[in-house]
């Protein structure tokens, strides 16, 4: 009986991808249901093989453009006529400041003009001309809420479901639940900014207590783009080819002295797979395959946004090749405009507006937008009052801010919810971070209550017991034709 068991393991090991195999899984599924499951004498193995979406998926991949620091929703996404009228008057409401020394109670109207864009007529700031071109494809959520005023905690809330760190991030959950469609690429990719990691650094793509297989793989903003993927430049290409050829020769000789040792053969093929991964990842990141028109669309000819545009284009190419989740981070606090907002905010818009809009346009014309969920947003918005009268800025606001989503089952041309007349607090159709999570897991055909992981402290999940509600209003398909 153990022979039978073990020879199957050999068969699997030979395939070089660990102990689990999709075909076998299907063959065995009936048995798995019928037979008593042994207590885990052996621990379950984990892999990145594609998993069936338990429900009917609308999205199969996601690109998250994370604007770390907190873009000012009042100046970009939500016009506030009342604020305009009360410009420079004292604000009468209660405000929580992050920086008391520079705090002021004076209201400050947005210095930028808003106008109706697209067929839907959603009003957007003049700082976002390109977004206006795709506004009919996006859903602008104007009443996001996390309610914790620090960057780190609010990032955690949006990224892992709770204000604490150490939990699995969104990408880790999707990789765990769904695997990857391309065995030669990671399931979860991070594209970080050349000027540095965002606040919380590597926490942002943590696997938490999920197996580390589900951690985000950083595609670095400079060469080498993936860790352990390439040797140093001088050992690449022909040098490495010779290295692998020689290694193979060593291993083949060794194998002839060890006939029938399947593990040794499996390791030989694991080097072949590793080499394929190197090629696949490089191919995915080779932008010379893109037309000049596409490169221009993403602003690669514009020094201001070429770098960020490159990462947006990487994201599309990775998704196209079966990567499940790509997250692009802007640099450390680049959107945290406590002061100098009059120049710093337009600057960040020039960096991100064109490529972000291009991503939506490009995904759409390639037929990928239907199944790719795009997210654009930061961990907070800004206050309607002035911080630092000498060098005007705005302080933190997590009680109401804007985020946009597109594709993957999201309704386009919609502006959803609102903050109060000053843009201070989300009041209408509030979307909490856990609602956002419930909604996007739903779009992936995953039941937020069933995507769980057993750990010593109990059952872990993204929502972690919070009452996340699917925001049906922003979805193309309502509950009546949802499969879950």
């Amino acid at each position, binding site marked *: 009986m153990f022979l039978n*068991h073990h020879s199957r393991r050999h068969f699997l090991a030979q395939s070089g991808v660990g102990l689990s195999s999709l075909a076998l899984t299907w063959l065995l599924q009936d048995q798995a249901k019928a037979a008593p499951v042994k*207590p885990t004498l052996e621990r379950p193995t984990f892999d990145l093989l594609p998993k069936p979406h338990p429900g009917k998926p609308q999205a199969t991949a996601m690109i998250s453009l994370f604007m770390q620091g907190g873009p000012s929703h009042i100046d970009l996404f939500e016009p506030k006529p009342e604020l305009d009228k009360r410009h420079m008057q004292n604000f009468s409401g209660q405000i929580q400041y992050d920086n*008391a020394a520079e705090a002021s109670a004076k209201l400050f109207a947005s210095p930028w003009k808003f106008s109706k864009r697209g067929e839907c007529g959603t009003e957007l700031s003049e700082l976002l001309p390109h977004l206006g071109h795709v506004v009919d494809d996006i859903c602008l959520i104007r009443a996001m809420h996390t309610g914790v005023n620090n960057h780190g905690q609010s990032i955690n809330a949006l990224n892992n479901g709770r204000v604490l760190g150490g939990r699995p991030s969104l990408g880790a959950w999707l990789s765990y639940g769904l695997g990857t469609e391309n065995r030669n690429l990671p399931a979860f990719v991070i594209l970080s900014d050349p000027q540095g990691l965002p606040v919380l650094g590597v926490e942002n793509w943590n696997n*938490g207590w999920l197996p580390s297989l589900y951690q985000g793989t950083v595609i670095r903003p400079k060469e080498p783009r993936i860790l352990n993927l390439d040797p140093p430049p001088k050992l690449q290409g022909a040098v490495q080819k010779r290295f692998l050829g020689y290694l193979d020769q060593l291993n083949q000789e060794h194998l002839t002295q060890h*006939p029938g040792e399947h593990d040794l053969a499996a390791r030989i093929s694991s080097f072949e797979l*590793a080499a394929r991964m190197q090629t696949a990842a490089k191919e995915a990141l080779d932008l010379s395959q893109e037309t000049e028109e596409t490169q221009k669309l993403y602003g690669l000819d514009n020094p201001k946004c070429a770098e960020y545009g490159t990462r947006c284009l990487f994201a599309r190419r990775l998704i196209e090749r079966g990567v499940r989740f790509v997250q692009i981070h802007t640099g450390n606090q680049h959107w945290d405009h406590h002061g100098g907002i009059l120049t710093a905010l337009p600057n960040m818009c020039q960096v991100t507006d064109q490529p972000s809009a291009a991503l939506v346009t490009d995904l759409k014309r390639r037929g990928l937008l239907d199944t790719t969920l795009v997210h654009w947003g930061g961990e907070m918005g800004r206050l309607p009052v002035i911080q630092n009268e000498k060098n005007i800025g705005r302080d933190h606001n997590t009680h109401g801010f804007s985020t946009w989503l597109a594709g993957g089952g999201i309704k386009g041309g919609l502006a959803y919810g609102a903050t109060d007349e000053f843009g201070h607090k989300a009041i209408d159709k509030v979307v909490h971070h856990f609602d956002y999570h419930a909604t996007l897991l739903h779009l992936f055909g995953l039941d937020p209550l069933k995507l769980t992981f057993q750990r010593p402290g109990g059952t872990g999940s993204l929502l972690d017991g919070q009452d996340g509600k699917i925001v049906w209003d922003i979805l193309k398909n309502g509950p009546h034709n949802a499969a879950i």
Partner: protein
Amino acid sequence: MNIPVFRLFGICLLVISSVAGAGDLVTDPVFETHIRPILKANCFHCHGEDDKYEGKLDLRLARLMILGGDNGPSLISGQPDQSLIVKRIVAGDMPPGEKKLAAQQIELIRRWVANGAKTDRPEPQSPPVGDFTDEERLFWSFQPISSPKVPTVANTGQVHSPVDPFVLAKLERHRSNFSNEADRRTLIRRLTFDLCGLPPTAEDVEQYVNDPAPDAYERLLDQLLASPRYGERWGRHWLDIAGYADSDGYTESDPVRTYAYKYRDYVIRQFNADKPFDQFIVEQLAGDELVPLPYENLTGDAAEKLAATGFLRMASDGTSGGAADPNLAKNDVIAETIKVVSTSLLGLTVGCAQCHNHRYDPIAQTDYYRFRALFEPAYDWKNWRVPQARLISLWSAEQLKTAQQVDAEITNQTDVRMKELDAIVQEVFDREVGKLPEEQRESARTARTTAADKRTPEQAQILKDHPSLNVDRGSVYLYEAARINTFNTEWDKRIADIKTKRPKEDYVPCLTEVPGQIPTTHLFYRGEFAQPKQAVNPGELPILTLAHATEIPVDDPQLPTSGRRLAYARHLTDGKHPLLTRVLVNRFWMHHFGKGIVSTPSDFGFLGEKPSHPELLDWLATRFLADGWQLKRFHRMLLTSAAYRQQSVRRPEMDTVDPDNRLLGRMSVRRLEAEAIRDTILSCSGSLSDKLFGTPAPVTVDDVGQVIVGIDTRDSAGRPTDKKVTIGEEEFRRSVYVQVRRSLPLGMLEPFDMPTLSPNCELRPVSTVAPQALLMMNNDLVIHEALGFARRIQGIAGDHPAIQVTKAWLTAFGRPPTSDQVAAGVVFLTDQTQQIAARIPADQVAKEPPAAQQALANFCQALFSSNAFLYVD
């Protein structure tokens, strides 16, 4: 099991064996042997074990099935299609929930009913409660350990050690015998890795190969057993099963266990000293009960006994804060500790009986709580002590006094500091007030000194309109950055200077009892601590007392402590326990042969595998006792055997009958463990530190999230600061000394299956996946150490390529290359030198290592990555 359906694939492999087991269906099943185990695992929980039986139906005896419940008789002998028990199971109504019976199991039950529902013997009046069926009572691992006779074999020439006849006899029954003895180069590499976890040096190899003495092998063996590296290697095996970690785990913050290493060092010392295992186990279970109270001014021996109880402090512990449910966290510490103790020492999955009677083994839920009562005086969940409170100071009385004086001085000085700071705050406030219109100043001042809920609306409004008035100790730096900075720097230094007078803190984490405080242990209904039921007394699992009775005192009057753990430890190690020595010798065997005689080393129960050589297992256990529980003697006996010294090459005729080598007709080829791979690479390059013991080498995250050995220099927001703190040889310490932070597994070890602790590691998996290949091909550390290896080889071989190839080969593999292999290596070096030279820009030639050295490094890296390096024959 709350694993979502789509996560089930991982465990499918487990299922194969249990399904395959039912492959040949018994034609005439009887209740006790064939039917009861199925019903016990699937039905008894509701129909027999709970307080009330669902539908008043009790399935524990055939007689009671015929009697039936609310729906009438459940069983009509001879008429399966009329019998409710068959009908409900076939219809899928029973058992309820997702887990259904397998087709074979249903067929077996149907057949049993059709054949007249036979029982082996007349059934008792009432179902056995606290009693066992004969099948359970007679189960192999619960029997007293026998002293089997050494079997006779035909091929006596192949017998070198008393273990050989046991293995050989079985091979001969399969018309086979041992493979030839492996050559000396293979033997010294195998032996050195097995005992020390490192490769032999090229000099060691040559010396052994050329040693003409007839006892060359035995002397080599003694030499290795005497090496301090031996304790590091075998200590690491024990740390796996103890679940050793340098952090608490459980919560996201994963607090560091600063002093956990005291237990690690204790373990390594015991292995090196060859402390008899009975003592070793008594100390780990009850070292505190051997030391007189109070635990102050400790002698070295007392400190060591207390450090030993670290064994019971290894489970993850979320009680220092941050756990969602603190009471659950406390009870989880106890539950996890029970798992560690029972899987490591009893080889039983006792933990399965926490919520209900064990589904497969004769362990009732009551038994579980009796076992738990052994630990409750120390783990009293209603009078809990957090991890910090379980540290015992190693200070002498004088050191303690000095520390108290220093602490008093610090408190004084901190008061002075705060007064000075408040003065600055007041000054800033006065200045901010000065910015207000004259008429508001007075109310602003009053508002500030008035409690928030006592302020007039006008006062509140002023503070709100002018948020900059809200200056306090925490925010004053925003107003006076430079001044506060200087203030803090000066004060920090002043306090730090005082602190230098304080003796260095030193603690040992241990499990202790509070004298006189003995809680009553209750059975928890469904394992929930909020539902305590009857009180239970401490005791051994009853199934293990049938042949080996014992009494565990509730409170031993001879001791200040309860004496429970001490009594249990002595009972376990009195030489008559049916499981302990079997479990121990099986693990020792496993670490030498790749697989245990029982291949499930922590499950000697009904679901575990049966021993491949049961007589050998008992003989080894008996011998281990007779040899005074001393492991080094045991190693000598195993490692001098013909069984151990065989070649590892597969023999086609044996492969067809025994592909997994359970009969040991050859040695198994084994992959190096994660630690051995890292340590061997460092040893080849010459950078491996040989420092023993002490605080662990710290781990941190580099700028892309890879966990490396080093000091954490990230700022408070988790961002890299690009600061590098050199830690010298700490960076290159043996892996056993690298901090085991549960949330930060070392990037170099993790891909190679380093143990995951939940709560301990019973058996390491061996995987072969592409990330391992990428690591060997491209990892910074691997490439860096390959260059170190190349430089070392150049130091020995100069610039002569053929000699370089030969020397590197000898160091990495312990054998010289053939002339063809040298030739191929030289061609490789030539090719790579050319290719690399062409890539070094002219202006870099002076700065970079020469092309030939880089080519040699590349060659060394190929050796590191090769199967000859990663596997042991």
